[in-house]
């Protein structure tokens, strides 16, 4: 394969709080290749958004990137000066967020804000900027773009605001677009349109995309490769088909079975993952997933697993892996789910 456009190595981002040091991103390494769409999935607090903000060097206080490398086109972004970073942000790497409402300035016209994004980077002469803004708004399928450029953000619907954000992100044709839950606040029909739009942009202008989301359906449609994060670490990565068809980490496996599917018949009981994600100030010893893992062995309590090859281009950090869980531990699609058990009712009743 080609040289990666983005190479993250052993990234650590920590939050220094009164209660202790939160290890939000704890040794994350991955590559992104030109034109690729990479999904980073996981639940709240797993470190997926912090990984993105670390790449952009936008980690909020009291957080700090403590060690690691973020190589973009071969250069380490963590060694850049704040001025150099400002140049890169918006020009080479753009980021879109979940909430377009708070990312747009409410007292400036939408068109002006898109124009401004181009003018700060001197990419387009001033005379051309207005013209290009309209073209961009058309490209993200905002109807009546010529009129809409004069609208203030509150005059646009949620979906249109997100499209305007994407137009702004694309205004300098960045090589890399990082999208952090860009459709989570939107209705499903609008979400579907935004996802189609991102897909087209990836195809048409060859922008590499990092899609950060908790929604596995979104990843299935858009991404070619997936990284699954849990408690600040990558627990599994691989091509999207492998991760969905043949997950090897029990967390990935359980996550895929805990979501109801629109195309499934009713009343297959959902497989829930017992317990809660760990406290990242004092993460569990050994594998961080072991307290919730149905297939843990003795070693999982003490030894920290590292990412190892488990299939073609697929890696997982697990001492057991699902292959063994199926072969030796009787893992079945709905093993150990008796009525009541997965809802937590019976286990708690036993304690009490």
């Amino acid at each position, binding site marked *: 394969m080609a040289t990666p456009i983005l190479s993250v190595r052993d990234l650590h981002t920590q939050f220094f709080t009164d209660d202790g040091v939160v290890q939000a991103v704890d040794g994350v390494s991955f590559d992104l290749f030109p034109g690729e769409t990479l999904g980073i999935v996981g*639940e*709240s607090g797993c470190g997926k958004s912090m990984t993105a903000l670390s790449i952009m060097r936008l980690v909020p206080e009291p957080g700090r990137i403590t060690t690691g490398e973020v190589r973009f086109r071969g250069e380490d972004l963590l060694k850049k000066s704040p001025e150099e970073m400002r140049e890169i942000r918006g020009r080479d790497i753009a980021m879109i967020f979940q909430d377009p409402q708070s990312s747009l300035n409410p007292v400036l016209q939408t068109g002006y804000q898109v124009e401004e994004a181009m003018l700060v980077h001197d990419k387009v002469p001033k005379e051309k900027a207005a013209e290009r803004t309209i073209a961009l708004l058309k490209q993200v399928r905002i*109807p009546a773009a010529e009129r809409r450029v004069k609208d203030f953000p509150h005059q646009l*619907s*949620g*979906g*249109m605001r997100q499209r305007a954000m994407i137009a702004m992100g694309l205004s300098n044709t960045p090589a890399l677009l990082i999208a952090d839950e860009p459709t989570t606040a939107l*209705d*499903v*029909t609008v*979400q*579907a*349109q935004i*996802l*189609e739009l991102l897909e087209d942009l990836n195809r048409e202008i060859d922008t590499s995309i990092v899609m950060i989301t*908790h*929604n*596995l*359906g*979104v*990843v*299935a*449609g858009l991404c070619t490769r997936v990284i699954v994060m849990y408690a600040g670490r990558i627990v599994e990565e691989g091509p*999207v*088909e492998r991760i*969905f068809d043949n997950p090897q980490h029990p967390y990935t496996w*359980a*996550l*895929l079975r*805990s*979501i*109801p*599917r*629109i*195309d*499934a*018949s*009713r*009343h297959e*009981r*959902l*497989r*829930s*993952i*017992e317990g*809660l*994600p760990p406290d990242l100030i004092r993460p569990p010893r050994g594998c961080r997933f072991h307290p919730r893992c149905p297939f843990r062995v003795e070693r999982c309590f003490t030894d920290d697993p590292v990412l190892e090859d488990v299939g073609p281009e697929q890696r997982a950090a697990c001492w057991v892996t699902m292959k063994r869980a199926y072969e030796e531990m009787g893992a079945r699609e709905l093993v150990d789910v008796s*009525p*009541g058990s*997965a*809802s*937590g*009712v019976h*286990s*708690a*009743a036993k*304690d*009490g």
Partner: protein
Amino acid sequence: MAEPARRLEPAGTAAEPLVRVENLVKHFGAGLLTSVKAVDGVSFEIREGETLGLVGESGCGKSTLGRLITQLIPATSGTVSFGDVELTKLRGEKLRQQRRQLQMIFQDPYGSLDPRMTVGDIIAEPLDNYGIVRGRARATRIQELLRVVGLNPYFNNRYPHEFSGGQRQRIGIARALALNPRLIVCDEAISALDVSIQAQVINLLEDLQREFELTYLFIAHDLSVVRHISDRVMVMYLGKIVEIADSAEIYESPKHPYTKALLSAIPVPDPKIQRNRRLVELSGEIPSPINPPSGCRFHTRCPIARVPGICADTEPPLEMKAPDHVAACHFSDEVALVTAPAE
């Protein structure tokens, strides 16, 4: 929980209606002469023992409808009957007594619990309101309710901030169960939770339904969750019901183009399927509920509407299109031909 067992019809069959809604309207004043037509003339039934899913996009009126049914807000016109009692006619103490049987679980597990009350007091508040139990019996009941929702019964003296989102939602469920209600309206009850925790709460709601013979109105924007938990699904668009059917039936053969578009937009966590799905494109944006379109409210965005023509002129009635399947569309026969998600 000791309460005389109620008769439970198998879910999905034509059981007795527990709730009957007729021509219900809620307009919110938005100016001197304008009003937001949040719910604009809806009629339907909720059957005893079933889970009726209610879906639609933001602003379609689904949450307002939930609040109208539980009598949290007064209706502009129309009726809501619970069993033999017409709730919309009742006032004061008589309404208060009926309300015991209708409870609600809210979306935000952080905002819906008073941070200064202990969990025990939160759960017992409905019991205190109605003066049902005191002293020892009250403490026992709190522990019983905590156990029922899968929390440690000895957590009664803790405060909400000591619990995770999923656990708080369990506290909200325990509070809703305190008065042995017959109907629980779940308004986006699991939307704010992480996926692995969502599954725990969905499973809990299903267990509780079986154990206490509950009827649910399950309001959510996530159609996958609604399909999973519901016996029947009702779809709303701009204050109107556009379709009601059995949840498998509505997924397999929707009779309203809006339902079809909504279904085609749900991402499926399977790359092979998701890659090849085709979206039923809706043109434009959702119109304002202050000034809804004439005729069929969906005609401005509908892929099969006759405009100008009947769709812009005449409002389609909600009528039977198949057994136990109603929809409000002049051309429901054509819905099957609208570009389907390819397999």
